[in-house]
């Protein structure tokens, strides 16, 4: 729903005032601006920003303190007695064994789950979106509306029967393909809808010209539709990747929960379930799982925001 949401947010909702806006000079806008930014508002903004950042900052600081320090007092003591160690990160990432966090393996699992689970739905959805936008056939509108309507089905509605299909019919429960397929299915309705919005805006003349030159649908799809939709594919792909990376529910149901397949989120949920025993590991463990979303967030913020606004109704 990206285009709708963002466009609605951007569009002035009283079009009649547009004329006035253009007639007035920029100087006036400046004066109003100055008057609206009071020092109190700035103070309140900085206060909220600080309150919002402290929890994450505290955990980051904790992750670099020694296990004894984490257990015995709060992270704010770092300002009194500074210390720094990478011990926790080494412990959760590299130490092998039954009782260790073993996050190295789970990190690999998260990648192995998230990359195909982001690519599969995007590709299948692009194909469907192209067909709904540019191949004329009877019932196309009705099927498209039906797919759009599927977004209202919470994925909880599908979990039990889908798990039965995976375990009893296909026999793939607890493997990577099971998690890939589940994420692909749950991602499809939204991806098709968003990509359809985008692909249907490609100018008809471009497609028509290619058709006149003798290109068939497969050729048009690869030579025109995919190159022209790359920005949209990137936004939606990034969102789908992060959605899968951050997901816990689908992983819990379909991955089987072992170090062979389960992603980071699932291991973190297990570790936090025994908070008392794992508290010195948890800050570092949490940051290992947060690092990928945070890199994506700060480096690709524009795409990220677009994709997020688009996909916020998912799940």
């Amino acid at each position: 729903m990206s285009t709708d949401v963002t466009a609605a947010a951007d569009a002035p909702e009283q079009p009649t005032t547009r004329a006035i806006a253009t007639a007035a000079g920029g100087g006036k806008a400046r004066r109003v601006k100055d008057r609206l930014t009071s020092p109190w508002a700035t103070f309140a903004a900085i206060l909220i920003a600080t309150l919002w950042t402290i929890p994450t900052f505290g955990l980051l600081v904790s992750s670099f303190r020694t296990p004894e320090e984490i257990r015995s007092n709060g992270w704010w003591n770092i300002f009194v007695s500074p210390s720094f160690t990478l011990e926790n990160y080494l412990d959760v990432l590299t130490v092998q064994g039954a009782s260790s966090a073993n996050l190295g393996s789970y990190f690999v699992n998260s990648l192995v789950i998230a990359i195909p689970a982001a690519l599969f739905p995007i590709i299948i959805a692009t194909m469907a979106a192209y067909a709904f936008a540019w191949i004329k056939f009877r019932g196309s509108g009705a099927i498209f509306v039906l797919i759009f309507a599927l977004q209202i089905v919470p994925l909880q509605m599908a979990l039990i029967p889908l798990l039965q299909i995976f375990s009893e019919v296909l026999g793939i429960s607890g493997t990577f393909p099971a998690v890939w397929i589940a994420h692909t299915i749950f991602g499809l309705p939204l991806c098709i809808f968003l990509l359809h919005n985008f692909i249907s805006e490609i100018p008809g003349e471009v497609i028509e010209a290619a058709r006149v030159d003798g290109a068939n649908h497969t050729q048009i799809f690869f030579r025109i539709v995919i190159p022209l939709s790359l920005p949209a594919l990137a936004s939606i792909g990034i969102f789908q990747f992060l959605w899968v990376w951050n997901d816990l529910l689908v992983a819990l149901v379909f991955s089987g929960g072992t170090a062979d397949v389960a992603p980071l989120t699932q291991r973190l949920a297990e570790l936090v379930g025994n908070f008392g025993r794992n508290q010195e590991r948890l800050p570092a463990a949490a940051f290992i799982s947060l690092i990928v979303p945070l890199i994506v967030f700060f480096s690709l913020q524009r795409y990220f925001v677009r994709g997020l606004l688009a996909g916020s109704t998912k799940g």
Partner: protein
Amino acid sequence: MSAFWSDLVSKFGIMVLGLAVFAAVVGLVLFLADRAPKRGRDYWQLAAFVGPSIVLLAVGLVYPAIRTTVLAFFSRQTANGSDFVGLDNFVWMFTQPEIVIVLVNTLIWVALVPTLSTIFGLAYAVFIDKSHGEKVLKSLVFMPMAISFVGAGIIWRFMYEYREVGFSEQIGLLNQILVWIGQDPQPFLVNSPWNTIFLINVMVWIQTGFAMVLLSAAIKGVPVEIIEAARLDGANAWQSFWNVTVPGIRGTLVVVITTISIATLKVFDIVRAMTGGNFDTSVVANEMYTQAFNRGETGYGSALAVVLFFMVLPIVVYNVRVMRKQKEIR
């Protein structure tokens, strides 16, 4: 260490194989459609393009949703199959005190999270509008939206952590603050019903950034000149905010509130990671998982999923209608 590397190679091998198989299947389907007999080639190509989506959705979403609805009227599945029990699963839901608490909790969540997130997000968007460093200030509050609910749960577990008095120093900031101001520390996540409020706080912390980004964009769409005109007519900052800005962003407000409501109704990970649904904090999505997958009560789990569907349904319908209207205005 070598065990780790061989593990890594074999897993990436599976991934590359999976990607290759996928590419081969998609390629083959499109190639065959390309080479289809001239008569009806359009239909073959159409089938190639929409077929995969329709098959996946029919088998993976439509059929399961129908089956879940059916399962909601049957008892748990055993080796001997299951019995039709009519509305018993729903009666169970509304008569078991602990499940009634689950339903009430969900209502508390959906009442508080959208309201508080929108209020904080709107206030923050107004405060930072056109201020210095707007981008940085935005990023700071928006950041929680990027991370997983499980990660957010761990962050807040440390904020709420409780140590008995005299046992050791507090390691949770909130309890340390209570100690500093001379109060007794509290086990925030144990004492019902306030623990639900503290879980809700985590969701508000995440969703405020989302509300802020959308509302900030909407506020920038309200022409400065109307606000200026209101000011010239003698309205103070508060009046012009309520009478000019808020009506100007009403459409976006509706979208923000409904979107957060839907996300809140489906919340699972936060409860799972922070209390596991213990101490009367469970919500419908978490209880559905517990019943269906921890206890094997497929009937109860399915009934809860159906209830969740009917809670989400009106909000989605309303949301779509509002968006349609906005499209018409444009």
